[in-house]
């Protein structure tokens, strides 16, 4: 099988990181809140274990991305406007999802651009919004000893994380810091898993072709599991793999997947909050 060229990082250039803060805002995203809460909880535990106080704004709902990318900018704007009040303090905002992080960092400003005051607030929020993995590496310098057995894993980096947040390398870096974990690079690693939000609903044929190829590439590495920092991709990939298992009559999941936060917590002696997605 041929290896496609890997694209390394953000198309938006490097950013600067703040010193270790006393506290952070945790913006969970609707998908984590309702569908994969254990990933959010494990991310919170990870942050707290590093000595950072985690503030969970109770009025958080959704970053507005589904409406924005579906071409409903007005609806996206209403939701974004409702979220601009959530972060009154000066603390960094940590998001356990590359695509929601990308939405806040690059698109909130565009969505509310008609109102200069709101635009300025959105810009200020964007400036202190970080994807979890980049925050762990660049701000907290996360380095806990690996306590797990030898394991090979495959890493899927979402397109938004890769291209908007530039977090392919930090994901790899976090795994590399775990002594007993080997990272298996899968074929066509940089290729989209086929989720794309409403794309997976609107164009199921192509979306299925893409996710099936992704599952096959991940499995071909022989890795025991897949790790990713995006719950959209994770659900897409693991639910496709589960469907293949179901169709083939396999009892055990052939491609278990975990959020990077859960994986890191488990490997470094923490107590994860739930079970697999």
């Amino acid at each position, binding site marked *: 099988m*041929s290896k496609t*060229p890997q*694209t*390394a990082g953000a*198309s938006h250039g490097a950013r600067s990181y703040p010193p270790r803060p006393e506290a952070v805002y945790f913006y*969970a995203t609707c998908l984590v*809140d*309702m*569908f994969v*809460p*254990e990933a959010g*909880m494990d991310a919170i535990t990870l942050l707290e274990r590093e000595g950072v106080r985690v503030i*969970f704004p*109770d009025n*958080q*709902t*959704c970053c507005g991305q*589904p*409406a*924005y*990318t*579906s*071409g*409903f900018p007005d*609806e996206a704007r*209403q*939701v974004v*406007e*409702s979220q601009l009040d959530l972060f009154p303090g000066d603390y960094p905002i940590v998001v356990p999802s590359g695509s929601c992080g990308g939405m806040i960092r690059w698109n909130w400003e565009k969505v509310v651009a008609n109102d200069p005051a709101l635009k300025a607030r959105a810009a200020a929020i964007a400036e202190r919004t970080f994807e979890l993995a980049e925050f762990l590496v660049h701000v907290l310098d996360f380095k806990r000893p690996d306590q797990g057995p030898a394991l090979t894993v495959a890493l899927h980096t979402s*397109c*938004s994380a890769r*291209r908007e947040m530039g977090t392919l390398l930090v994901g790899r870096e976090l795994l590399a810091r775990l002594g007993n974990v080997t990272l298996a690079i899968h074929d066509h690693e940089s*290729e*989209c898993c*086929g*989720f*794309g*939000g*409403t*794309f*997976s*609903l*609107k*164009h*199921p*044929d*192509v*979306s*299925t*072709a*893409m*996710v099936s190829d992704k599952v096959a590439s991940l499995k071909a590495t022989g890795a025991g599991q897949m790790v990713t920092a995006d719950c959209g991709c994770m*659900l*897409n990939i693991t*639910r*496709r793999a*589960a*469907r293949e298992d*179901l169709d083939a009559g396999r009892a055990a999941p052939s491609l278990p997947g975990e959020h990077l936060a859960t994986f890191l917590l488990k490997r470094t002696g923490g107590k994860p*909050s739930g079970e697999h997605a």
Partner: protein
Amino acid sequence: MSAHQQTSTGGKDAGKPIAFVSAQALRERMHDAVNDPHLRQSFRGAMDFLMAKRAAQFPDTDELDSLRSLSEAIRQYSLSKLPDLLEQLEANLTHNGVQVHWAETPDEANAIMLGIAQRHAAKLIVKGKSMVSEEIEFNHAMEAAGVGALESDMGEYIVQLAGEKPSHIIMPAIHQTKQQIAKLFAEHIPGVSYTDNVDALIQIGRRVLREKFEIADIGLSGVNFAVAETGTLCLVENEGNGRMCTTVPKVHIAITGIEKVVEKLEHVAPLFSILTRSATGQAVSTYFNMISGPRRGEDKDGPEEVHLVLLDNGRSQAYADEQLRKTLQCIRCGACMNHCPVYTRIGGHAYGTTYPGPIGKIVSPHMMGLEQTHLLPTASSLCGACGEVCPVKIPIPELLIRLRGEANSEPHANPAMVGQGAGHNALTSFVWRMWARVHARPGSYRAFSWLATRFRAFTPKRQGGWTAARTPLQPAPRRLRDMVKDRR
């Protein structure tokens, strides 16, 4: 804007008259394409090859990024002065002895070129590769009027023999295997027996075309860059057929879109460099032609007459909008399709447009109107691979989102595009309005998410496109906010 075009072609419609496919049938064609293992395999292999070739040309990402920024700046600068540059181009070309024609629609462009052909009593027009000629269905228009139009680019020649349209803007016959080409040649070229030896096939094609260059009355070509200050038409090609078309016949007609103009000759070098490297992974193309007029007294070759047809076909609509104008930065390298996971899986014909892939999704709506094309911008996961490799930094995902919005919104006065609102659906709009209501009010969202988790057992097991290939989604028993609260 023209309402011409759109009936059928390519894929399973191959062999029918060549014209555009209705974009409404996009889903059906995508379904057929992804279920064609031969197509899947051949496009995957070809795109992997082209991606690797491109990557090998750009080992230094800083150099790539600065060249992309420079190229973007040149294209944006050129577009910012487009009306002036077009006038300057016309003046300098006219001064050089080139006759300049303006066409708003494909029909107008074809009528202009047919007029030239008829004035010369032309029987055969031999063509270099030109996507704009595909865009206006040139071959068809000429044939309908009794003038032969023969493709001389090897890929285009194969596609023409097969009665298809190009499936890729740079590699028109990429969907054909050598065995299929061997069969085509044996069937269509007198005296040729089946061989799938690639070198032999190329020699057969060369031999046929060589004779045609000698007898053709008119040569047609596209244009990669038109230089305003010198009145020069630049043509990038690899096979030498472009040079033959533009020097051997007595008349040369060039056709291009109005966006292809640059101000200065020095603007061409960076664009040329990034074009060939992005397109085919070549440091430079085999041929680079610069045409600045017809044969002059002492010249040993060259046409006696040179024409340039400048086509609008929806480009001025894109131009009028600051954001959509970025569509016109395109230099037609095809890198976006080479890197597109959707294009890789469905090939070029499924799109049903002259220009397939990501660039096709953002340019076709201007050429054909959103009524025909409003589904195209939805056929993307917005992964961003196209924008990442675009040599002139067109923000393709952002433009796709914009086009989705133009299609979705209720039809209104003074739309930015023909067909605005063509994808508007009252139910869908209602659903999004409700979605916004829930998510823009934290209290509503808390109630909604509480209900969704509490009554998770009632989550539908059939979830449309999602469960077509995946196990269903179900909300967790408890929300993250509940877990956070409990812990404290």
